[in-house]
């Protein structure tokens, strides 16, 4: 043909192509293969989740003094009432160290747009940008106009319950180092940025920060600033590097400072171990097993279908003009 230079497999759409056809063999083997992969993955995940030992203790109600249970708000808002509270936990299974200590909040909308927006990353990172408080409404500056560092609602509402653990007489140290992401500490929260004017306003939010410690070392803040996706969330409080035995009794001394009574949120203390897959989450394993099982079933069903109602591949009788001869 003429015009050789304009002729190429590309322009003529004649590139070598693979044209997979969904033959019964393929259908069955694809479903079978998915099943083969998914069921074991599911089983392994389930086993991993089973290995995790988790102790959850809800303390928001229990820590309210008996005389104030019908006015929890007054209790939590009164600075003169001691917020100290003691809880006793019994270990149900052996727990291998490290044991993770979490606090869990419920019905707390860290994902609210008004909340999520209310921060300024520049200010957190760079001491020179302390005056950058844009987006931090309504917690930008103090009443006399001084910039708050760290500004914004997220920092202002910092969670401030504290826990200490003892087993018998043995003090279980909670290691609060490295509970945040390394990149956060090293890059997002400045080593020379110190809290200032924080929680100085009339309206007290959550926890306070030690003005002498740079933000990069305020790991509770760093963890808190990673807003959670859902209104129920857990955040890492610290790690205990001690193996716990079954039936061990742990005494928890906690100061119940954080106000969740206002909006009926629960507060829970969680002790948990973790595996390679994370915490105690059966869902992934079940989901894998179900999808894998479904695929096995489908492989079987299609095999059955091909036996009951076989259609020879490329059977011309199935062409529309052969099937509806009248329609011609």
């Amino acid at each position, binding site marked *: 043909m003429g015009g050789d230079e*304009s002729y190429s497999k590309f322009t003529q759409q004649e590139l070598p192509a693979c044209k997979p056809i969904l033959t019964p063999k393929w259908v069955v083997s694809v479903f079978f293969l998915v099943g083969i992969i998914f069921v074991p993955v599911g089983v392994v995940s389930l086993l991993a989740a089973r290995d995790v030992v988790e102790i959850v203790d809800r303390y928001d109600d229990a820590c309210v003094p008996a005389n104030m249970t019908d006015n929890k708000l007054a209790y939590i808002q009164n600075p003169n009432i001691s917020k100290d509270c003691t809880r006793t936990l019994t270990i149900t299974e052996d727990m291998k160290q490290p044991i993770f200590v979490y606090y869990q909040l419920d019905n707390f909308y860290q994902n609210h747009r008004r909340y999520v927006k209310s921060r300024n990353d520049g200010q957190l990172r760079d001491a020179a940008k302390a005056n950058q408080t844009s987006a931090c409404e309504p917690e930008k500056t103090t009443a006399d106009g001084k910039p708050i560092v760290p500004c914004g609602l997220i920092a202002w509402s910092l969670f401030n319950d504290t826990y200490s653990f003892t087993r018998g007489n043995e003090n279980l140290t909670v290691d609060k180092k490295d509970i945040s992401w390394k990149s956060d500490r090293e890059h997002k929260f400045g080593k020379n940025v110190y809290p200032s004017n924080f929680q100085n306003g009339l309206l007290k939010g959550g926890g306070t920060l030690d003005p002498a410690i740079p933000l990069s070392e305020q790991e509770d803040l760093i963890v808190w600033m990673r807003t959670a996706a859902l209104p129920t969330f857990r955040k890492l409080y610290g790690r205990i590097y001690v193996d716990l035995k079954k039936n061990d009794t742990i005494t928890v001394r906690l100061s119940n400072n954080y106000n969740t009574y206002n909006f009926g949120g629960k507060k829970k203390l969680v002790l948990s171990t973790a595996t390679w897959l994370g915490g105690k989450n059966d869902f992934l394993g079940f989901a894998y097993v179900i999808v894998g099982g479904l695929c096995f079933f489908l492989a079987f069903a299609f095999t059955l279908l091909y036996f009951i109602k076989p259609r020879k591949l490329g059977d011309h009788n199935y062409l529309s003009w052969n099937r509806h001869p009248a329609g011609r």
Partner: protein
Amino acid sequence: MGRTGGGRRRDRLRWSKLYTFSCFRTPATSGDAAGGPSAHGGSAVGGPGFTRVVHCNNSAVHRRKPLKYPTNYISTTKYNVLTFLPKAIFEQFRRVANLYFLLTAILSLTPVCPFSAVSMIAPLAFVVGLSMIKEGVEDWRRFMQDMKVNNRKVGVHKGDGEFEYRHWEDLAVGDVVKVEKDQFFPADLLLLSSSYEDGICYVETMNLDGETNLKVKRSLEVTLPLEEDESFKDFRGIIRCEDPNPNLYTFVGNLEYERQIYAIDPFQILLRDSKLRNTSFIYGVVIFTGHDSKVMQNSTESPSKRSTIEKKMDMIIYILFSVLVLISLISSIGFAVRIKFDLPKWWYLQPEKANKLDDPTRPALSGIFHLITALILYGYLIPISLYVSIELVKVLQAHFINQDIHMFDEDTGNTAQARTSNLNEELGQVHTILSDKTGTLTCNQMDFLKCSIAGVSYGVGSSEVEIAAAKHMASGNDDQDIQVQDVWENNEDEIQLVEGVTFSVGRTRKSSVKGFSFEDDRLMQGNWTNEPNSSTILLFFRILALCHTAIPEVNEATGALTYEAESPDEGAFLVAAREFGFEFFKRTQSSVFVRENFTASNGPTEREFKVLNLLEFNSKRKRMSVILKDEDGQILLLCKGADSIIFERLAKNGRVFEADTTKHLNDYGEAGLRTLALSYRVLDESEYSAWNAEFLRAKTSIGPDRELQLEHVSDLIERELILVGATAVEDKLQKGVPQCIDRLAQAGLKIWVLTGDKMETAINIGYACSLLRQGMRRICLSIPTGDQVAQDAKKALLSSLTTDQAAKESLMLQIANGSQMVKLEKDPDAAFALVIDGKALTFALEDDMKHMFLNLAIECASVICCRVSPKQKALVTRLVKEGIGKTTLAIGDGANDVGMIQEADIGVGISGVEGMQICYFFYKNIAFGLTIFYFEAFAGFSGQSVYDDWFMLLFNVVLTSLPVISLGVFEQDVSSEICLQFPALYQQGPKNLFFDWYRILGWMANGLYSSLAIFFLNICIFYDQAIRSGGQTADMAAVGTTMFTCIIWAVNMQIALTMSHFTWIQHLFVWGSVGTWYLFIIVYGSALRSRDNYQILLEVLGPAPLYWAATLLVTAACNIPYLIHISYQRSCNPLDHHVIQEIKYLKKDVEDQTMWKRERSKARQRTKIGFTARVDAKIKQIRGKLHKKAPSLTIHTVS
């Protein structure tokens, strides 16, 4: 230029002396003496609407006001440098979706917007910018096209009798130009003189009205002396005429020349875009330039066409908008409720410092503000890149169409030109084709093939139809499958069917002589003298050689003769006569000279025949005659014409061969040949002179009834004819046209021909391209005037009295009769053809009648409308479009490329995928958009998005759009060869198999399912537990990123499942999109401004097995339902292309060729038109014949 000097003398013929009808010159030459219409024209000049003044040969006057007219520069572009931006932007924002995105982009500058401004504006700018670039490039192409035209060159008088070549665009009103043979006229011209002595020239107006026959134009007598370059030295004249207007067929104006005023009528006007033919050169004065010219006045700005799919797309967008509004309402109500009842308790949000966007004391107001936020937030339901992707796909498709080697014309080196890419996908959905260019279907090259002389049929060559039939019979397949394909594939052998039916086959018949394919030894080499009726044969040849209006031209180099004939038929006759030994070699004013080579005397003799009169052909008469005196002094009238006309004029003793000839004529007609009957009459001197006196009187009479009189007089002499025989010429179709029409017909497309040609031309072409055939019942609708006038003077009187009303009633009756006929027809093989002329169409298109007409037309296998005006074309198109409600394809100016027509049946692949593409867009955007909505329910309807702004921005523009484009451009469900072999596959398009509501809803449901799976699986996996062995839990960034990863995988897997054709491009785009996502998240994650997504993949998610496990799980879960669907459909309810794919895959077509052939033939729609249908009919007829004669059929294949 060089040859004109020589050619000039040769062309010195006064045609007006010879011509009877069309070249009649008004004897009155000066305006004041002119009667009738010219006087009327003269009086109008100068009044309103007739203000143009042209100073001939003095264009300088027209360079300044007040006589400054536009230049001859034309521009058909939509935009220019200045208007491009505003106009193109306006065009873009006429689309609902774009307007919506513009609004959101503006709102993104306010705090209402949930996203950063840049993430709203960037995609919009990208999308709109891309569309505008596309517009710009297309307009640039138009500009280049214009430049090409503007830079054509033409000879212009520059003064002192010297001509120079100038660009068309530099022409000005008043310039004298010299146009040479086969050139286009650069502007509307007044013809001053031509290479013919009496200022005649031939013009082809194909580009104007689609008529293929040449038109004769003549100059005013007074300008005839301006016949040489030098004579323009001092030429001056003033033309006063009408203002520019679009009317092609009228012209009112006069010429003031040498202090006399002469009326100009349309005969002297040469229109731009028509072509000079058969005339060496002409001189003319430019009257209208550029956009003032009639053809440019006629071109209307083409409205932006929108395809049906695009309309449907809009509809779906509206649906999505409704969904959007609905969920926004839900969301804002939820927000208002939460704000009123819950927000005051959420101390961590400091509700007491709330602004008006979330003020618990004014929940209604906040709710309204939030509605806007939500409308923007859920905007990802609307696929912003839909339009631009589809557009891009179309541009690329157009590019591939342009590059397609199968549409490469080797003669001209041109490829197909897809002028606009807007309507590509419509190609796959065509239901009815309206062709308005019959001329492009045939080569207009006649081939003399057969003749019947004295009741004996000569000529053993076969027409294309016969060859096909013979091939089929010989192939011996006794069932219904007809392998027309084979006929075209190998045509080198020769087939003889014994028992009287003989075909010698082939393209092999191509003799060295163009226009002559006749083969029969009985007539060649002078053998005819041995035939029993040799005297009749002699007459027959003489008629061929003498009865015409052609001029011989000697090629100076080779000495060979060529003929400049008005119609190609005549050319073929003359060539045939020459081959038979009757060479017409010279024409003088009064005589025709023929060199007879194989007469009885057996040596070349030159004979001179005096031409006494010439009654030329026109469409009313359907015949032409010459009256000559031969060397013996005998006066002969030779007449050729349509058989019906000739037969009714035969003398009693002239009907000897009538029966046989009629039979032969029918055979020829069936074989697809154009036929003419030849006859003669011997006149005695007295009879002739009596008639001639009357004729001269009629010829010199003045007045409107002059034509009528002439016709009447001619009619008197063209009687008592003696039939000699008949000719059969084949009008060769353009290469590929029969196949093309055949395939289109088999693909189930309807073909209508709307032509400006005369009825008989249209019918002839209809025959030639198998839209009509013998044995088809033809329903002719016409208003009883016109044709009958010539036949019956009385009736003419009556019909002139007929009012429109009566005409309408008669038409109504005709339509009713036609419908009745169709209804009563029992034979399923009977085919009807509807032929309607322009006049009847005027009435048929009126509101009360058009549905009746349409219903009749739909029943007919083919529809031919003749003499249709451009407006009627549009009306018919609209009628069909609205009446049938299906896509129609009109073939007309600009697209008169046969290859394009051929290519229309490749639309299958395009259409299927086009619908799929759009469905996929909705799928992916629903899957994505709804997850945002679900998240809202978990975020207090606050308008927070779980995804980073930049993810969302990239989703539509980068991460999911390229695979769809590759699907649109490169997908082939079956290869193009198979499409051609199984035309019925095309029906998948018009039946809208790929884009019906069932399917759209299915995809939407799939999107809904995917969104649910993606969101809730991820939420459950990442609910509250640690995601890593290090005990860290997932924050919003981690959840959002994982969900987004799942979406990217799910939608790209989905598109991979819909593809059936993977080249490296598809692989690159699909897997590249997924890869790009990971690349992006790494790059973006290394930027500090990415906030919580900083190092999200490398530090947080990458090392977490849970992340990868979730991706795999969700991707699988999202795609399993679709996989089930396609597996089930394929196994239990396969579509045609599925089965064919499998046959191809298993190579069954090679193993079981009988099956493959059988299916291929079955795949054709039963049609009543087209080549195959014709071959069918022929076979039936031959079978019938053979059946009578012999029970068995023996086939010899002579190799």
